[in-house]
C-alpha cells in the first residue's frame, strides 16, 4: 500500500475530516420528541385516572396504550421517521420498544411465521430484555439484602 500513514494515523485523520454528528440539534430534537411522547402518555394516564381507575391499573393500561401507539405507527411506516428525527427521544420510551419488536416482525414476514416473524421478532429487543431482566434480578437481590 502506497500510504504515508500508519493505520492509527489514518483512522485519526479520516475521523477528523468526517462530517460531524449534529449533536446540539440531535439533543434538542430528542428532548422535544421524547417530551411529546411522554406528554401523550401523561394525558392518557390523567384521562384513565378520571374514569376512576386505581393508580396502578391506570399506569399499566397507559403502558399498553403507548405500546399500541408505537406498534401502530410502526405498521403505518411512520415510527422510523419519528426515530430518525428524535433519536433516543423516540427509542427510550416504551413506544420505541414496541417499534423494535414490530419492525423486524414486519421485515421477516416473508421468511414465514416461525423462522421469520417468530425467530426474528426479538432481534433488537432481545438483548434489551436479557440484560434488563439480569439487572432487575441483581437489583432485587441487593434490595433483599439491605432490607
Amino acid at each position, binding site marked *: *500500500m*502506497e*500510504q*504515508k*500513514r500508519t*493505520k*492509527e494515523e*489514518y*483512522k485519526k485523520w*479520516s*475521523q477528523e*475530516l*468526517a*462530517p*460531524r*454528528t*449534529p449533536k446540539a440539534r*440531535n439533543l434538542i430534537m430528542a428532548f422535544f420528541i421524547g417530551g411529546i411522547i411522554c406528554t401523550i402518555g401523561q394525558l392518557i394516564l390523567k384521562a384513565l385516572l378520571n374514569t376512576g381507575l386505581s393508580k396502578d391499573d391506570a399506569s399499566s393500561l397507559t403502558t399498553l396504550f403507548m405500546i399500541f401507539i408505537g406498534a401502530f405507527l*410502526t405498521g403505518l*411506516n411512520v*415510527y*422510523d*421517521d*419519528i*426515530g*430518525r428525527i*428524535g*433519536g433516543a427521544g*423516540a*427509542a427510550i420510551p416504551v413506544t*420505541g420498544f414496541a*417499534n*423494535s419488536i*414490530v*419492525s*423486524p416482525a*414486519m*421485515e*421477516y414476514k*416473508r421468511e414465514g411465521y416461525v423462522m421469520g416473524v417468530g425467530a426474528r421478532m426479538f*432481534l*433488537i429487543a432481545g438483548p434489551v430484555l436479557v440484560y434488563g431482566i439480569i439487572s432487575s434480578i441483581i437489583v432485587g437481590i441487593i434490595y433483599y439484602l439491605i432490607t
Partner: protein
Amino acid sequence: MGTRLGKQTVRLDSKPVIQSWAAIVGAKEGHGPLGRFFDEIIEDEYFGEESFEKAESKFLRETLAKILMKGKVSSGDIQYIFAGDLLNQCIAANFGVRESEIPFFGLYGACSTMAESLSLGSLMVEGGFAERCVCITSSHFCSAEKQFRFPLEFGNQRPPTAQWTVTGAGGVMVGKAGDGPRVVHVTTGKIVDMGITDANDMGSAMAPAACDTITAHFRETDLPPNHYDLIVTGDLGIHGKNLCLQLLEENGITIKEFYDDCGVMIYDPQKQKTDCGGSGCACSATVLAGYILEKMSKRELNRVLFVATGALHSPISVQQGESIPAIAHAVGIEMV
C-alpha cells in the same frame, strides 16, 4: 493478445468494445440528478414481486434483457455472463440469470463488482475465449438494509458518514467488434485494509484502496492523469471522495478538476437526505451504464477511468470487531 504492463495492469490490444449497456433504477435514483439518463425507473420498491430479494433479481433480469435488446442479440449469442450482488451467496445474480441459459460466473466484489465483472469480461474477449460477454450487477436498498443493518421500519438514526444503497441494476455487453467505447486498460486492485472498523463509514475504509489502484494504474501505464476526461470512483461518497483526493495528492497525482464519484453524482444529498451519498453494486453500475457510457457515445467524454470500490466485510466480521478490507478495480475506457 493483451500486454502486461506491470504487477496490476494489463493493456488490451484488441480493445474490446462495449457494444450495449442498460441501467434500471428505483424511484429515489430516478428522482435524483441523473434520473433522465436511466433506461427505466421503477417506482414500486417490490417491482411487482413479493420480496425485496426477488425484486432485486428482477432488476438484474430486466436489465440483462434490456442489454440484449439494445445490442440486438439473443442470450444464445453470449458466451459468458459475469454477475454479482451484495446478498448472501449472491442470490440476486443467481436467481436473476437463472432462466437465461448463459454460462455464468458469479462474482463477489461487494460494490466493486461492476469493475470486476467488466475487467473479467473484457479479458475473456481479449483472450479470444468469447465473442461477447455480459457484465452486470445489482443492489437494492431494502434487501441490503435487511442484511447489513436494521429492519426498514426500525426508528434508528443514520450517522452523517452513512451512505444510501442504490436500488437498481446496471450492466454492459462487451464484444470483439463494433463502434462504441472500448476497454483499453484493466488495473486489478489488491485488498487494502487501513484498520477502519466502523461499518457506517465506508468512505474512510475504501478511499485508500481507490488511491492504491489509481496510483498503480498511472505508475504502470505511464499515462499522465490528464489523459482522462473523467476519473470516477464507485461509491466513496462525499467523505471518501475528499479523502481519496488528498491521498492521491500526497502520491503526486492531481486529478481534482476531472475527478468525481458515482456515489456523489447519483443523489442530491441535501434534498434526498442520503448523507454521504450512494453506495452498493448498482451505484457504480448504473452511473456507468446510464450516464458515463451515454456521454462517451455522444463523445462528450472520450477517456474515462472507471474505478469501482468495494468493502469486503460481512455483518459477522464487523460484529467480531474485524476491520474492513477494501478493494478497487480500475478499467480504462476510451473512444478511439
